[in-house]
């Protein structure tokens, strides 16, 4: 079998020294971490927490990749399952690169980076797909739904706008485009509704693509190695967004945000529009005094940084600024936050055991710091935590940041 994608990235594979920092924490607990000034979390890798074998870790994934490159491992169903077990949260890469942040800060030299294990896994999956060995059946079903109906839930595209609050008219063309995403359109409609109401109240004109919006394709296609299918989504969406006249696109889902902002330009080059996350726009509206948060919310609130927003997008100050502006809120941080956030376990498709374990562990982290409400900024996080709280019988409320802001605005 040819590993053309893996071959291209083999410098990363061999760069992994199996030191274990990706799953066990840093070499020196006292070393000043220039990004994160608190204790680093003990739990880092969702699959490792579910399955304690080293196999299911950043180091494990790189060693497996090395095994196939050197001909020591054959492609089997078990291997494919293992490679698709990773949630691609990127915690391993951040932990691995921690020393470079320090060196860069101390001497001003950029001398390297952590092993890009998520990229290794994406390349590996692309090779598996090319060889007909991947993806897993579960991913195939989601991919087929997207191919057929342009959304991951196999629901009619005409229902994509069903979330729109009664009486609200949203145009299809405009400078600011709200990219709703499959999750908010079909499942977490309260996120989309809250955000639309906030924008309307702020007097911000915005548009949506409506049933011309297709799944962004990032979590379910690109990350699954289905490159050609992903590119189809990219081309359609970029064309549709350009046709809408948008110069700025905002997403409430951290995965859509990452895909549009980071992955789309790799396919089509310059997008011709900028991409931002709802939390960034909310912080801006707050600065511009276009929204005022006046209603007291007497809750102890923590923020779950979505992996793709914080680790990839480096957006973590804005959501905190917004939350802390709400009167009555006692804001607390969980162990493992900002770039060192701990994954909810829900990515790229629901992995029942991994997702539930990661989600319940994180709810426990929130409870440990006394949070009564966990706020997040990603549809997948919310999905995972809603399931976890049910499983735990926990009273912890789970809200998207748009819902919290809408509540504080009395909407």
């Amino acid at each position, binding site marked *: 079998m040819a590993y053309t994608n893996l071959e291209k990235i083999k410098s990363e594979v061999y760069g992994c020294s199996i030191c274990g*920092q990706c799953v066990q924490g840093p070499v*020196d607990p006292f070393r000043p971490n220039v990004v994160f000034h608190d204790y680093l979390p003990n739990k880092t890798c969702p699959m490792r927490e579910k399955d304690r074998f080293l*196999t299911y870790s950043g180091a494990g994934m790189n060693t497996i990749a090395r095994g196939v490159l050197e001909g020591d491992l054959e492609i089997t169903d078990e291997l494919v399952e293992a490679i698709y077990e990773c949630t691609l949260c990127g915690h391993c890469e951040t932990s691995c690169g921690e020393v470079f942040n320090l060196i860069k800060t101390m001497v001003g030299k950029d001398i390297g980076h952590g092993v890009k294990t998520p990229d290794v896994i994406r390349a590996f999956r692309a090779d598996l797909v090319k060889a007909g060995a991947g993806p897993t059946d579960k991913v195939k079903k989601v991919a087929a739904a997207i191919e057929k109906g342009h959304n991951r839930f196999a629901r009619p595209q005409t229902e994509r706008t069903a979330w729109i609050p009664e009486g609200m008219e949203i145009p299809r063309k405009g400078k600011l485009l709200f990219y709703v995403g499959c999750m908010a359109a079909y499942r977490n409609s309260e996120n989309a509704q809250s955000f639309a109401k906030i924008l309307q109240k702020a007097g911000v004109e915005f548009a949506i693509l409506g049933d011309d919006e297709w799944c962004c394709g990032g979590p379910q296609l690109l990350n699954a190695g289905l490159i050609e299918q992903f590119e189809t989504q990219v081309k359609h969406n970029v064309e549709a967004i350009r046709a809408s006249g948008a110069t700025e696109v905002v997403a409430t889902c951290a995965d859509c945000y990452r895909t549009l902002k980071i992955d789309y330009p790799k396919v089509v080059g310059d997008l011709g529009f900028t991409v931002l996350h709802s939390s960034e726009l909310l912080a801006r509206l707050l600065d511009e005094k276009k929204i005022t948060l006046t209603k007291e919310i007497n809750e102890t609130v923590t923020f779950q940084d979505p992996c793709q927003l914080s680790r990839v997008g480096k957006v973590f100050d804005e959501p905190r600024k917004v939350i802390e502006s709400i009167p009555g809120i006692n804001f607390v941080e969980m162990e493992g936050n900002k770039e060192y956030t701990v994954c909810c376990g829900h990515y790229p498709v629901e992995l029942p055991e991994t997702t539930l374990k990661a989600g319940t562990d994180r709810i426990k982290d929130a409870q440990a710091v006394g949070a009564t409400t966990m706020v997040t900024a990603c549809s997948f996080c919310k999905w995972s935590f809603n399931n976890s709280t049910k499983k735990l019988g926990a009273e912890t409320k789970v809200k998207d940041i748009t819902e919290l802001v809408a509540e504080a605005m009395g909407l």
Partner: protein
Amino acid sequence: MNIKELKPLLEEIVGAENVTDDPISLIVYSRDYSSLPAQKANIVVLPGSTQEVSEIMRLANRTDTPVTVRGGATTAALCTSKEGIILDLNRMNKIIRVDEDACLYMTAQGGTSIYQITKELDKRGFILAGRPMFGPVASIGAWVNTVGIGGNCARYGYFSENVTGIEVVLPSGEIVRTGVNGLQNCDPYCRYTHTSDLTGIFVGSRGSMGVVTEVSCRIHPKPESVNFITLGYNHDNFDGLLKATNLIFRADIPDTIDINDDGVGKMMGLEIPTPHLITMTVAGHPDEVARKIKLCQKIAVETGGLDLGPDIGALIYYGGALTAYIYKKDGYGHLVFIDSYWHSLEAYPHLYKSFKEILNKYGLTENGIFGWFMKGVGCSFPVVAYKEPDQREAMNQAWKEICDAWFSVRNSAPGMSVTSTTEYNLDPLKPTHYWLLRNIKDAVDPKNIMNSKVIPYAGRTK
């Protein structure tokens, strides 16, 4: 008994989800934090309790199955095996007690990472005796097995000198507690009692005497402040470097003192003013720290050295231990620690020169040396960044030559990751030392099922 027969018995002990013989996992567990060739064992088991470890060891002993214990796997050659069971202790990661109000000691399961422990102690205003700078994720049980060295050892000694007792499962499955914890009514607050120091049998035994399932050790108050100072020396002034090190110890200055060369700095692309460095951490009350820094500066003047200030030391101290990462700037690469040659202070120049010459001869020019010192005794860890797989053969050949060269230097004791275990672990021993060691090994592990390479010929009648 073959592995197919063994597997269900192991699953009965720890649960099927904690046993694997799938080829993917065996490949993953075939490597460690070193350049050594992969070795594939037959099965990997994750025990969750001392009782489970005991049952596994009884089964292994009964069936003559080799067992290799794995913690963080940061010490080369000890955690992989070409046969038998890999016993991965990472599920045994609980901190059992921190006695901060009375005896100042703590207890953790053997698979608990040093980071996890240090973090918990830091929250309470305490530190462990050592700082794990040699490998990122050492576990406390493995640290006992490899003696335990790192930052702060100039102040507190080897980590194992601070151990107050261990719980260990012998290869036969018996569970033994050492120190006062070996008495009927005592917690593990003190290592020494009215009988021999049984803890010492397991310290440094490198997984050959038993599975360390629990470690108790002294904890120390966190110092009020820490600062760094580095003194620089030229090639022609090894005498000054050694004299300065001795004077620094005599003045009781450092918590950590390393003798490094500029190799690591060069790998980072830094200009280091001198090729040899004495890097220190100094801790305590801020006034005391300032006084000690001044003393160091005076010693530098007296011995022909340069005061290089705090920054290089801080950088090397915090960033240097992870030189594995530094090489990634050049694409795929790896690092090897030819680790742990215990040596006297005066042996250092000989070790340094041979190390440099041999590596340069093989074109392995991206190298550096770390040496932690305790009251004149050193433990040097050369690091070499080399290209995998292109330079692997050259690296392993150079490694052999360095081992030979270092072995021949007086007062240089070979350490962990030597190239020929029989030659280096047996030949240097005085016969009576080997005789006693062998008898102890035969008593606790008559079939030599645990890390059988460590004590050559154990378990054989010949």
